[in-house]
């Protein structure tokens, strides 16, 4: 489970895209709860990459459906660097 700090940072990046004012929690999904299309998700990924100074490969995206999964992946990559 990702740390609160990582999640908060990601919530901050999602906020401008959260047009439906969906509740942001680790289990929030990008496609259903936030209604983000795949292109918007990819732009968000780019912002997350820059914020954490990491590379989130495109190949990983299909497995990342929730905010919590992204936060976990970010922490794992940060830890490996």
């Amino acid at each position, binding site marked *: 489970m990702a740390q609160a700090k990582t999640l908060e940072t990601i919530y901050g990046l999602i906020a401008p895209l959260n047009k439906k004012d969906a509740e942001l929690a680790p289990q929030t999904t990008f496609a259903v709860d936030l209604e983000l*299309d*795949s*292109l918007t998700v990819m*732009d968000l990924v780019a912002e997350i*990459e*820059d914020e954490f100074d*990491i*590379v989130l*490969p*495109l190949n990983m995206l299909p497995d990342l459906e929730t905010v919590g999964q992204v936060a976990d992946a970010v922490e794992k990559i940060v830890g490996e660097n």
Partner: protein
Amino acid sequence: MDLLDKFDSIVDLRASLPFEKADPFKVVIDEVISETEAVISGRHTILAGTNNYMGMTFNEEALEAAKTALDDFGTGTTGSRVLNGTYGGHKALEATIADFYGMEHCMVFSTGYQANLGMISALGGKDDYVIIDADSHASIYDGCSMGNATIVRFKHNDAENLERRLKRLPEDAGKLLVVEGIYSMLGDAAPLKELLEVGKKYGCMTLVDEAHSMGFSGENGRGVAEELGVEHMVDFYVGTFSKSVGTVGGFAVSSHPKFDVLRFVSRPYIFTASLPPSVVASATKSIEAIRRSGNRRAHLWENARQLHTGLKKAGFNMCTDEAESPIIAVHLPDVMIGTRFWETLLFEGVYANMAAPPATPAGMFLLRISVCAQHTSEQISEIIARFKRTAEIVGLNID
């Protein structure tokens, strides 16, 4: 469980589009009058949405060569390039393209789509990185999915964004940077100098897809890399015969000494039939003609600038500040206006392309016009006039 149920949302979306009399995905061209005119549903129509930039589809030498090849070699090869599907014509075409690009080696694929699949999936191995522009053509994305490399995406045409990503990758890993010369939706050109310099600084091998730009960019028509004088930084080019060359097929060229091994490892090269001899013969003649067609290139650029200037002056919201290619795209505000505009324009006798997400970046609705070297200046004026009339009919405010 009906396997097609998962597409219901797409069926619904299409059904919700407000087309009344025509459907952009079901246009049938009944008769081709010339490179620039056709009969569509009984109407005489100016073609302003083909990829026939250099107007080579009726090039006499290409037609003649294709007919002779049909008579001499038949309608098809019925086999893979690595089995019975390589004829003398295929080798001659590869030599012609290698010579055209001033490179050592060329592989001819059955389509440009397969050339990207075949190059990217073979070059990017398990421990390698493939770095692509976010607005890349589907064939580049699919080449990435087909291979085993780690895929990294950078912001469209943004060298600084690319550098930030390259910095994060392991220094000694294999890296392939893939970019296009001209991006087909907005018709914008890539800042290849900046992109390739950054790529080289971080040890990338580079692949430039000149699918659209071949024919009209650069002194010999090799593409944007030639135009910008940065060909020394290109390791591989990919291109297609389906646009300026006026037929079908794809290719990759390189001076890499080990290039030929790709013939044995690139699955989209191996597991499909080779191009028919007639297509190969016309592509060869067409590429030779493109090389000599400096005047035609100049006229094509005049057409592009005339169209861009005219539409901009009329108040259309242009996708680029000036003509960066013969693809001139205008923004339309939403799907309703987009579909009505496209349909009305067709009934005014101009065929252009409607482009909508996901093919377009950032959810844009575009009307995309591509001009041909054979369009006359009168035809371009006519296209502009019909655009204005269409805007009026559909109530698009352009001032």
